[in-house]
């Protein structure tokens, strides 16, 4: 048993020594490999952290949102619907919500105006999302002028800047009082944008939704799980775009790695012949080449993953954030909470380490099965 361990140790020693002999080739390969792993791992970390972030933010969302549809389009919903919905068994609370979009031609940005909330601002005052505040260079105590639906401008005092822990979803948010909202948008009385419905037993949410849809055929109940799914698919889709680009990079790398790994030089072939002629078995040569491949790929994997972790969770992924966090000019600025999915790390490991290791073994195996007398004649 000890001899077997010693054998592996000796061959590993020689593998490390062999790698050092071809510093230039191996370092360039290691660098390239690390960069690819870094990009893929960054992307995986980023998407996972974003999805988790969105899930955390939506955790406080209502169980159901009821919208009214007219000719298949959203229309303000009568607040009176809420009284009837609250009478459905299992419904604990119904709250009308007021929200809409405001396009600012100066900054060319769309803001989300919201008029619900337990802590509304004072009259003719607003709360600003940190993205809006940053874009418009506003602080608490400053004033913001918004152009109303009838063409008149309304001036609001900035009461506070919203905390940045929910910046991903709330970067473009402006929170406003309900009466100011109605005045600004000339919103019809007795109507709300939608209704937020809370249900006591979460298992009953689909049943309650079905009852609402039955009782109010002109409405569309949206489940919280559907909202979470939509967010997840949006992040997946954005990630998918970068994955397509990365695929091209990975493919280039695979071609390069294959070329480097499979193309045994005449010197390497001769060395395999020498090793066999002095008593190395074909299996010993394969172990040697596997160790060489594993050292390169494992080092690149670990370095790439560690760098990706730093890139995403300590430096907020500067390479990706503009492509992935949103399309508007209001790019959120916040630190993602570190979150690593071991399953994805394993997938990444098998996609990067295994193919390279195998690609180094095959040509060595072909070379090592040749009679060693070629070494005698070289």
């Amino acid at each position, binding site marked *: 048993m000890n001899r077997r361990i010693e054998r592996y140790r*000796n061959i590993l020693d020689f593998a490390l*020594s062999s790698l050092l*002999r071809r510093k230039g080739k191996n370092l360039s390969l290691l660098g390239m490999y690390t960069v690819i792993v870094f990009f893929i791992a960054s992307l995986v970390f980023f998407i996972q952290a974003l999805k988790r972030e969105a899930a955390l933010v939506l955790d406080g969302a209502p169980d159901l949102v009821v919208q009214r549809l007219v000719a298949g389009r959203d229309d303000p919903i009568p607040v009176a619907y809420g009284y009837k919905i609250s009478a459905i068994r299992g419904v604990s609370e119904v709250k009308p919500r007021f929200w809409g979009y405001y396009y600012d031609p100066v900054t060319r940005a769309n803001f989300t105006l919201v008029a619900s909330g337990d802590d509304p601002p004072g009259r003719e005052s607003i709360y600003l999302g940190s993205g809006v505040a940053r874009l418009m260079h506003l602080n608490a105590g400053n004033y913001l002028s918004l152009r109303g639906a009838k063409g008149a401008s309304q001036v609001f005092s900035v009461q506070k800047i919203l905390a940045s822990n929910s910046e991903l979803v709330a970067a473009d948010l402006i929170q406003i009082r309900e009466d100011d909202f109605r005045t600004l948008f000339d919103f019809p009385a007795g109507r709300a944008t939608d209704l937020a419905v809370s249900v006591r037993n979460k298992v009953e949410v689909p049943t309650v939704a079905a009852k609402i849809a039955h009782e109010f055929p002109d409405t569309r109940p949206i489940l919280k799980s559907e909202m979470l799914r939509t967010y997840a698919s949006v992040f997946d889709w954005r990630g998918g775009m970068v994955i397509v680009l990365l695929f091209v990079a990975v493919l280039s790398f695979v071609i390069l790695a294959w070329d480097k790994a499979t193309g045994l030089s005449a010197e390497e072939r001769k060395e395999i012949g020498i090793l066999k*002629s*002095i*008593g190395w078995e074909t299996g010993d040569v394969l172990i040697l080449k596997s160790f060489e491949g594993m050292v390169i790929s494992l080092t690149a994997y670990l370095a790439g993953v560690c760098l990706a972790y730093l890139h995403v969770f300590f430096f907020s992924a500067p390479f990706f954030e503009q492509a992935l966090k949103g399309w508007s000019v209001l790019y959120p600025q916040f630190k993602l909470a570190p979150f690593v999915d071991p399953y994805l790390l394993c997938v990444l490991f098998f996609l990067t380490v295994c193919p390279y290791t195998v690609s180094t073994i095959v040509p060595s195996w072909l070379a090592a099965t040749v*009679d060693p*007398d070629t*070494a*005698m004649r070289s």
Partner: protein
Amino acid sequence: MIELIEASKTFNAGQANQFIAVDKVSCRISRGGLTVLKGPSGSGKTTLLTLIGCMARPTSGRILLHGVGKVCLPGLAVEDTVEITSLPERFLTTIRRRMFGFIFQHFNLVRGITVLENVMLPAYPTGAPVAEVRLRALELLETLGVSRHAASRVERLSGGEMQRIAIARALVNDPLLIIADEPTAHLDSRLSEEFMELVAGFKGAGKSVLIASHDPIVYGAAQADAVIEMRDGRITGCGTHP
């Protein structure tokens, strides 16, 4: 110790460029002596060495190793005979590692690593503790007078020094038979004489030596116990001295 019975080696068999390198060679190589294969270039000496050294298989004929069964393969008795002609590759490798030490014409040292590592290389897959192998390698380098180069890269050494490193490497697994192919081809007369003195030392230590050479310093040496003369793949003469 080694017996060849009508051993032949044909390259590119059945093709237009078919070439018979060794043609029905039968001979015996005795234990504890120096046997020299003498002949011009292309006479089949090197091919015969590769057949005896388990580096290639004969196309036809048999090669037998007498009285070394225990050394060759586990489970055999000392007096057992092993026919290497039909053995699978992994058994051939075991025999090659345990029985033979090779000194190549061009030394075939691995460039880029140290002299000490080169000498230790054949022992790595045996699973011997690295400290033990290192000590043995250093002792061999000391015996051969090149221990000062232990930490040097092999490509920085002279031809004579490289040959001594190749000898040390051939001896590190303590083989029964040392096989050398044209060992003096790249040495001047003085170094060739020194090499033959080393060979005398091997004989004194109980090792068998088989050398292929067309250098008179080798085949004319007093240490040669048998000289086998070859031409065109056949044995044309045999004796203690040509």
